[in-house]
């Protein structure tokens, strides 16, 4: 049991270090254990961090966000898995559908590990932020959102750099791996933004009730709202 835990820990460290030559070997494994472990890490890591996102609004929002954040990651991966697999083959990467999903799953795992490690700092920031009832609640709400955007962006960028190195190792071609990664990122960001819109709220507005999903979750989309906000700004 201890040896197995030690091996798992060793693998997670290799994943974080981004040692592409070691990681590439795992793609030959047929066992489902490693993908399941990655799913577990994502659930725990993103769940913990998701809880810190919602905690400022209320403990109930923390619970909702802790459930929704990992769900968002998994739904993005699952919904785009077919497209990502096809693009990998079309662009000459030579990965199977399973290997494509595993590569993206592992990059999400890196994100989850970073966010889990960042969770204590996130809680400390929360502790020092004026509460919901303070006169500066609006700016506190904005500050919290900005903090989380920065942390999640940093995790995402680092994970994608590792994914790029891995794809280059697997394909032996920088151009192909760059094109493939760009395509995956475009698709995942496009879909992920809309899924995040549907799954809102995560932080929770001080002026709205705590809800798992907003009443108008499926009414409108992220890009329409961005466009509307830009129109209002320019008018």
């Amino acid at each position, binding site marked *: 049991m201890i040896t197995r835990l030690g091996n798992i820990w060793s693998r997670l*460290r290799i994943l*974080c*270090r*981004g040692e592409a030559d070691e990681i590439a070997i795992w793609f030959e494994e047929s066992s489902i254990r490693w993908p399941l472990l990655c799913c577990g890490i994502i659930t725990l890591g993103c769940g913990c961090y998701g809880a810190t996102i919602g905690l400022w609004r209320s403990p109930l929002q923390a619970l909702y966000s802790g459930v929704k954040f990992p769900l968002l990651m998994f739904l993005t991966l699952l919904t785009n898995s077919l497209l990502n697999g096809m693009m990998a083959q079309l662009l000459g990467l030579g990965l199977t559908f399973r290997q494509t999903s595993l590569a993206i799953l592992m990059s999400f795992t890196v994100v989850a*590990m*970073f966010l*889990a*490690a*960042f969770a*204590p*700092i996130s809680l*400390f*920031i929360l*502790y*020092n*932020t*004026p*509460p919901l009832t*303070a006169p500066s609640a609006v700016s506190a709400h904005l500050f919290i959102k900005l903090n989380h955007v920065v942390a999640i962006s*940093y995790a995402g960028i*680092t994970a994608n750099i590792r994914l790029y190195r891995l794809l280059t190792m697997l394909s032996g071609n920088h151009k192909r791996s760059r094109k493939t990664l760009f395509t995956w990122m475009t698709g995942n960001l496009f879909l992920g933004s809309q899924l995040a819109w549907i799954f809102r709220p995560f932080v929770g507005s001080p002026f709205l009730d705590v809800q798992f999903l907003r009443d108008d979750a499926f009414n409108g989309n992220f890009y329409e709202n961005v466009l509307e906000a830009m129109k209002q700004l320019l008018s």
Partner: protein
Amino acid sequence: MNESPAPNQSASSGMSTLDMGVGATLKALLKHPDQIVVQLQHDKKGRLITSLLFITIACLAGYGIVVGSFSGAEQLWAAPVKVTLGTFLSAFMCLPSLFIFSCFSGVDVKFSETRGLLYAMLTLNSILLIGFAPVAWIFSQSTESLVFMGTLHLVFWSVGIWYGLRILYHGLRDINAGNRGHLDVWGFIFVMVALQMSTALRPIVGTSETFLPVEKKFFLAHWADCMRPNN
């Protein structure tokens, strides 16, 4: 690359690396930090860790008394408690992220080694603060400006933490670090957390009716308030 050195000898000084009592640890931190790094990679580093923690707590408490001597009374015990507790809380909060950032930098390091290097960083910081303590005490007794004393303590702390971060980076480099960018980001995060911790635990230099503040403030907002002319 990762072969352990000879168990009892350090290349730089010939001193025993297993004999890490308080005195030897102090000497090694200031003169031969590579000994500390080597010892932290051994399995038997309990004595070194104990020495590091003992020195850190003693030095921080001592410096805390100097900080509290500005206001006197309750601050003579409250300031050492807050300085020591605040330092360790900041460090433990940032420890998981230090490990992850080390991995991101390509460092093949165990969690226990990372923790040991973090302790070494705190210890060197606290030793330097004790070095500044007489200077801080002189100023404490000869000025009534809270802002001046707060700034002075921050400057001393910054010098200490700069050298502390240096030993941390050197230690991780010696265990084969590649890109240091992630570690620089972590250093920035740690400094921000520590500065905010000083605000969360206020007052440390001044006085108050309560042990901890009632109102939540960010570090810069608190300092801006302190520096207003009517304050």
